[in-house]
């Protein structure tokens, strides 16, 4: 089952009345959608509101989603339209910030165009997550670190990773799972604190 097929299966479930399947799509795409919207909207609270609104609009429009494009392409289109409506309703012009979602996970030079895109709290949280994940990855045994890196950063399939690492697919699966669990163990205390704060 490909990534697209997984999304399709989740979408089909929502279309059959399983609202909870939509939560899984939100969890998967919220940050990517938020980053996209940050190209148009500068205020972080507005980005959150528009992200929310875009998901609700997507949910309402799901009966007409026919799978001709990938779910995220369709979702992004809804996100962009929602952002445009938001900006015109508020009499604002979009700010185009092509370089915002920089590759290293750090906040790029934001410049004058976006003074409050990252609030200090969100900024710090972002940095803490990246640091915690990086430290946890670096602390992994080498075979786990290689497996999770090939998967998450290089996007290799289990078959490809098995070839690179010269081990059975079942081993790849197990290593990636163990890597994720090890990283998650380091990350959870931070997330629990964040949940309490609700930044």
């Amino acid at each position, binding site marked *: 089952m490909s990534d697209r097929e997984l999304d399709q299966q989740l979408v089909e*479930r929502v279309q059959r009345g399983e609202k909870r399947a939509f939560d899984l799509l939100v969890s998967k795409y919220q940050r990517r959608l938020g980053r996209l919207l940050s190209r148009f909207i500068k205020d972080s609270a507005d980005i959150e509101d528009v992200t929310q609104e875009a998901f609700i609009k997507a949910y309402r429009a799901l009966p007409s989603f026919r799978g001709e494009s990938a779910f995220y392409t369709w979702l992004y289109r809804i996100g962009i339209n929602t952002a445009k409506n938001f900006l015109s309703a508020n009499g604002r012009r979009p700010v185009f910030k092509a370089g915002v979602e920089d590759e290293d996970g*750090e906040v790029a030079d934001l410049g004058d165009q976006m003074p409050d895109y990252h609030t200090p709290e*969100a900024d710090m949280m972002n940095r803490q997550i990246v640091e915690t994940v990086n430290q946890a990855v670096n602390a992994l045994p080498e075979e786990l670190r290689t497996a999770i890196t090939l998967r998450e*950063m290089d996007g290799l399939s289990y078959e490809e990773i098995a070839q690179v690492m010269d081990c059975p697919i079942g081993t790849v699966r197990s290593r990636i799972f163990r890597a994720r669990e090890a990283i*998650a163990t380091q990350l959870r205390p931070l997330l629990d604190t964040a949940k309490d704060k609700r930044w």
Partner: protein
Amino acid sequence: MKENISALMDDALDDAAAHAAITDLQADKTLKDSWDTYQLIGDAMRGGGGLALDVRREVSERLRDEPTVLAPARRWPLPARKLRHYALAASLACAAVVGWMGWQQDESEMVVAKASEAQVFSPVTAVEAPYLLAHQEMAGTIDSSQRRVAYVPARDKAAH
């Protein structure tokens, strides 16, 4: 179980296993937490910022007030032939009524409901309709030998 969720994210399950994993995922909060955290880890490793954004709770709460969407079960992508399934599409205007099209052999069948009219049931109270309530308590289709037990909140019981 969690390993299946990890494999599901990586498209490494066959259709049946993926189907089962998604069902488990929706039913089990621990698994859902793992799904959320694994997704965050992936985003963090790939870089790109915006990791602090979290609208899961807000969207979930707002969805509670949304009518359930129901759409045709369909192959993906949509086959050229007309759908035979019925569908409940929450967008077509058939004010205050639900249209139901049944038993057709060759044409598509569609249930339509106006989005604003689609509701969930709201029970009446004992004060509003004691007879209706009494009837519904006693008139289930289960065999007459069935013993019925209704659960009421402990605090309410204590109050009586």
